[in-house]
């Protein structure tokens, strides 16, 4: 067991860190989310050029065959910079879903194109009444003459406004929460019967609700085999959940040290407020939560290749810890700043917003505690 980065990993970390520090300062980001719509193609080109988009793809699909550890390194640094482009939705969630589904033909090309930046697929899976439950799909796919007709609504499809493809899950059989009977389809912007309602999210990133009204999908655009998409979806969610934990760790780490620096300079009652013991102990608790989160990230990364029950238990355990930590670190980073912390102008509140969104993404603490109980009862 080795918890240290190897030489290549250090180089990778340095390259992401440099990008964030040099090209993604807070003012640049603010401009991007206000005026640039939350997506800069130049940034995406950098991601492609430096290999970050290909790193998690299987070699047989043109990827670099890196492990989730490399993705975690990237996500942690992106988290520090509050990077809003949909790296995780495309290069992790959609990529893993495609890879795990065993793609061929057009879908395989889409997977390969992620690495070059030519394709930006996103997974349109979540629904309002799922609230984290991966098996819950009410969107229905009905078989027609030449393919499928999809009807339903997908919510919080992060990155969809910039996507080139949508991987849409729909139920081809079974009850709404049945793991069996879920299929995955490849759709594209402009497909008939597909409406995209774009929304701005609290962390300044963009998403869409996707409304399918008898959208016609040719048979060839079924990804994998009919009714068997759950395993791929679960694997993709395990990866994405783990890697959003890595992002949260980056965000918490940065928020913590920004707050530390503020406490050393802000004067009240004739001294730096960092001298006050109650605030010192609060900071200690924040560090404890951060480091326990890091420890749990290792646990989740270690389990990603394990059997689903083992993997999901570890991932849930990590997400529980990250949720608890995100709440404490994000909330207290604002509290310790005082008034300046709640202003849109200042950076710290944006960490809070991103951390709050991460806490609620891919199942909140309540969902994952429940899943741990269910897995323990098996």
């Amino acid at each position, binding site marked *: 067991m080795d918890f240290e980065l190897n030489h290549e990993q250090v180089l990778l970390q340095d390259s992401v860190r440099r990008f964030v520090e040099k090209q993604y300062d807070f003012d640049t980001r603010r401009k991007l989310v206000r005026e640039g719509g939350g997506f800069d193609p130049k940034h995406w080109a950098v991601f492609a050029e430096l290999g970050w988009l290909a790193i998690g793809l299987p070699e047989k699909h043109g990827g670099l065959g890196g492990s989730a550890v490399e993705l975690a390194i990237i996500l942690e640094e992106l988290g520090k910079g509050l990077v809003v482009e949909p790296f995780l939705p495309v290069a992790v969630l959609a990529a893993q879903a495609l890879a795990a589904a065993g793609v061929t033909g057009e879908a395989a090309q889409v997977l390969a194109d992620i690495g070059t930046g030519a394709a930006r697929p996103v997974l349109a899976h979540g629904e*309002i*009444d799922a609230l984290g439950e991966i098996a819950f799909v009410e969107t229905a796919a009905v078989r027609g003459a030449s393919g499928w007709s999809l009807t339903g609504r997908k919510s919080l499809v992060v990155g969809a406004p910039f996507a080139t493809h949508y991987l849409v899950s729909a139920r081809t059989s079974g009850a709404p929460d049945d793991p069996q009977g879920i299929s995955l389809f490849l759709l594209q912007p402009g497909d008939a019967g597909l409406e995209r309602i774009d929304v701005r999210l609290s962390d300044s990133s963009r998403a869409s609700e996707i409304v399918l009204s008898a959208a016609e999908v040719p048979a060839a655009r079924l990804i994998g085999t009919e009714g068997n998409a759950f395993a791929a979806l679960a694997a993709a969610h395990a990866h994405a959940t783990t890697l959003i934990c890595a992002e949260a760790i980056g965000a918490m780490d940065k928020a913590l040290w920004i707050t530390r620096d503020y406490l050393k300079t802000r004067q*009240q009652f004739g001294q730096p407020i960092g001298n*006050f013991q109650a605030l010192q102990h609060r900071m200690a608790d924040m560090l404890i939560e951060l480091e326990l989160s890091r420890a749990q990230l290792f646990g989740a990364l270690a389990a990603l290749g394990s059997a689903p029950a083992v993997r999901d238990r570890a991932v849930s355990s990590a997400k529980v810890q990250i949720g608890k930590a995100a709440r404490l670190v994000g909330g207290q980073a604002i509290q310790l700043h*005082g*008034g300046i912390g*709640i*202003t849109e*102008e200042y950076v710290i509140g944006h960490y809070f917003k991103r951390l709050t969104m991460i806490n609620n993404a891919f199942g909140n603490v309540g969902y994952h505690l429940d899943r741990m109980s269910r897995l323990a009862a098996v």
Partner: protein
Amino acid sequence: MDFDFDPADESFREEVRSFIHDALPADIRERNVRNYHANRADTRRWTTILHERGWSAPSWPVAKGGTGWTPMQQFIFDEENFAAGAPLLETGGLKMIGPVIYTFGTPAQHERFNVPFLRGEISWGQGFSEPGAGSDLASLTTRAERQGDEWVITGHKMWTTNGHYANWLYLLVRTDPTQKQRGLSLILVPADAPGVTISPIIDIGEGHSLNEMFFDEVRVPAENLVGEENKGWTYAKFLLDRERAFSAEIPRNKRNFALLKQIAREARRGGRPLIEDGAFAARLAQLESDLDGLTWMTLRALARQGDSSWDLPVGSILKVRGTELQQTIGEMHVEALGDRGAYVYPEPDFATGEHHWPPGPDYAPGVLADFLYRRAVSIYGGSNEIQRTIIARQYLGL
């Protein structure tokens, strides 16, 4: 000891509820029930309506144009007002500077400021905090110098709620630089006086209620001093003590808790009602218990309002826990909204009523903005850290 509600209070509650039900314009209700920041036009209209009923100053004595209500009646009014979605009355004029003026100011000042205020004509902005003095008001540096029969004011004030709506400002300024608290005075300044600049502070909920104010040799007549020179701190503290029973914001917490239960009943996880999840239900019950405790402590504080022999730091207790409860409820709002909890529902254009909202249930707009803004409640008005220090030092003698 006697814990029965006074039947007179119960019929008073009915009277208030029924009046508000009939008198509150639907468009005002629609905007305010969503917890977006209050809007001056709404507040003014509602104040005028209440004024016609004689209710625009629930906490003032009859002689000063108020209702003369008991503390319990004021509390009941606040509860009903908030529950109905009516705007809060302006705290600055009603609970801060207004009473200072009628208690310590001149009759002329009362006529000049308070009487129009009762009709909704004056909107006050408070200038206490400064960039270098958040929790530490004793170190305020905004100066007022006496030059002839004028005060000349220079400095920088922060966090002025609704400063952009204000036509008058009341400032805590340093009139004696050799003293700490005892060198501060209260001075009234027209918001449009030359040298006054008011700039918005946008909060993380993307709302605008806060402002910063710059004073560059602003001149006001000597008579704009309220009460005695260098006694500003005393007045400010006197008023805060009077308001201690209201520190938990029970009306807000109650309405928000009711909203949380509504969301939890309608939200589904894996298709099943969230409220049927045992762990979630237990968290709801815990909040209900917290709310009960704060409510009964508030009732106790109302019963002892004005009793200065009661040294329990009830204001600090209610502030700490009331704000924590607001924040927890807000967190759970956002959590229970699920995917839609992440969507930005921008504040509507109050002039036109237009809004551009993403899809979601009717109750979603306003939730996220309020949740984010309310990170401030544990900071302002003496941060919760300051409150705990007050409890430990002043009451526990540590």
